[in-house]
């Protein structure tokens, strides 16, 4: 059930690494939200004619719905001026998220950029404890480590400049962990981040025969499955390829169904 809700801004603060957090009062969407889902946000200070912008749900606590964002373009730069009391129209919860159900695998989260937001929400909703890899350029960009630590996860951090955690790419840290990890349950990957990272994880999951769930990012029109703008190529169980909508069948897809190259 998708809802449309006039949400009041309760809090809006800088978060580190250029990210900001907005806390909305959105009781209906919040109570229905699951990890990996997103809200489609109308930014009131943007021109009346502007499209909504999709943002992952970072937290859903009672009436409160948290979103984490980075000012990168026209819409998010305007969002920077959101004030307590402003009213935003949200559509949500949207999309098909991560499963937080118990399984006999070891959850391994891999986050780049705003990807920590849905994954933090996932860790909080999972009963299992897992391993999380958070990568960024430098120390200040590493966010939300406490979210995972506080629920007992094993946190790995990698920065390109080595200013925090291991030096190098997040995939390097992951590869080292894979090479040296102790025996135990089979890893299952949950990831969200830039497309390059998602492709790299697809390869690793394939190589090791692990399940991997990847959240993808596409320009979106409607957010609810009507416009067919946000598609990703998938290969179904019957081997046939087709376009799936990131806003409806996704944004989280099983890595083994993803078809990355399509003419």
């Amino acid at each position, binding site marked *: 059930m998708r*809802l*449309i809700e006039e949400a009041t801004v309760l809090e809006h603060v800088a978060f580190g690494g250029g990210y900001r957090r907005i806390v909305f009062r959105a009781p209906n969407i919040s109570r229905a939200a699951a990890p990996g889902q997103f809200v489609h946000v109308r930014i009131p200070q943007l021109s009346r004619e502007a*499209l*909504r912008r999709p943002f992952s749900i970072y937290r859903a606590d009672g009436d409160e719905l948290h979103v984490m964002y980075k000012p990168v373009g026209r819409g998010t730069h305007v969002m920077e001026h959101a004030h307590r009391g402003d009213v935003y129209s949200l559509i949500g919860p949207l999309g098909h998220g991560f499963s937080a159900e118990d399984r006999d695998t070891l959850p391994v989260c891999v986050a780049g950029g705003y990807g920590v937001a849905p994954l933090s929400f996932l860790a909080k909703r999972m009963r299992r404890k897992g391993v999380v890899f958070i990568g960024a350029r430098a120390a200040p960009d590493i966010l939300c480590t406490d979210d995972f630590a506080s629920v007992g996860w094993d946190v790995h951090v990698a920065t390109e400049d080595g200013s925090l955690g291991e030096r190098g790419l997040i995939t390097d840290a992951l590869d080292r962990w894979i090479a040296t990890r102790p025996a135990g349950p089979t890893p299952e990957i949950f990831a969200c981040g830039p497309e390059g990272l998602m492709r790299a994880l697809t390869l690793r999951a394939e190589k090791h025969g692990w399940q991997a769930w990847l959240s993808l990012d596409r320009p979106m029109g409607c957010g609810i499955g009507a416009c067919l703008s946000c598609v990703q190529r998938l290969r179904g169980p019957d081997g046939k390829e087709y376009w799936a909508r990131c806003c409806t069948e996704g944004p989280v897809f099983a890595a083994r169904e993803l078809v990355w190259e399509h003419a």
Partner: protein
Amino acid sequence: MSKAPDMAVTIAGIRMKNPVLLASGTCGYGPEYADLIDLNALGGITVKGILAVPWEGNTPIRLTETPAGLLNAIGLQNPGMEKFISEYMPFLRRHQTAVIVNIWGRTMEEYGEVAARFDDVEGVHALELNISCPNLKAGGMEFGTDPKTAAQVISLVRKRTRLPLIPKLSPTVHAIAQFARVAEESGADAISLINSVPAMVIDVERRRPVLSNGVGGLTGAAIRPIAVRLVWQAARAVKIPIIGMGGISCGRDALEFLIAGASAVAVGTATFLDPGTALRVVSEIETYLQKHNLASVRDVIGTLEVS
């Protein structure tokens, strides 16, 4: 406050409870927006373009934002007529709203084939004939930009179906009046205007078009003044009714089209911004009619005074 104005209109023999439709390609096949809006309160719904066979559409990126507009090149992805009929028509039939099926073909014959198939599908009120989609490398657009071809395809489809026929014309022709007359003479029961306007946005960093298809179709508020002009010019040229669209987001916008001569309107892009747009348009038209002491929405249609 006077009594509620009469909002009903009859177009191409379809009686609609009000003159506000959802535009093809912006409301899926019906169920997509059903959680968010009451489809029964609409004048009608125009489903996304249907072909005889399933169609893949274009590679992403398929959409980008422009100043007060939206550029898309979906490329008419659709499940094909059989799957549409079995999967979506039962849902649509359960609703009390006019169902207009937007169809297209890669060849003249295919247009006819799709039209014929819908002739005996229960619950379909009319066919909208897309001869003006800018997002296909071949076909689509070409049928709508040459008067002779337009006449041929409309006449052919006319012979294959008893359903009311609503050709959707291209906005990129110079003499829209001529095309409107061609449609009328070829047996159209109404005309839809406008489809999206061919346009392009370039990513200057990569020196490539933002959309993989290169060219896309521009829609939304940016094109509204162009659409109003075309509807006005077409309405003066023909007797059959016109369904006007292009950038409608409020009652005032819709009234521009009605006053210019449209007998009904469709809301497209604005639904993405506010799913309730079409329903708000209905009530804002009612408020206007009351304020102006007009008993029926039909009293504003084509009332533009030009000096």
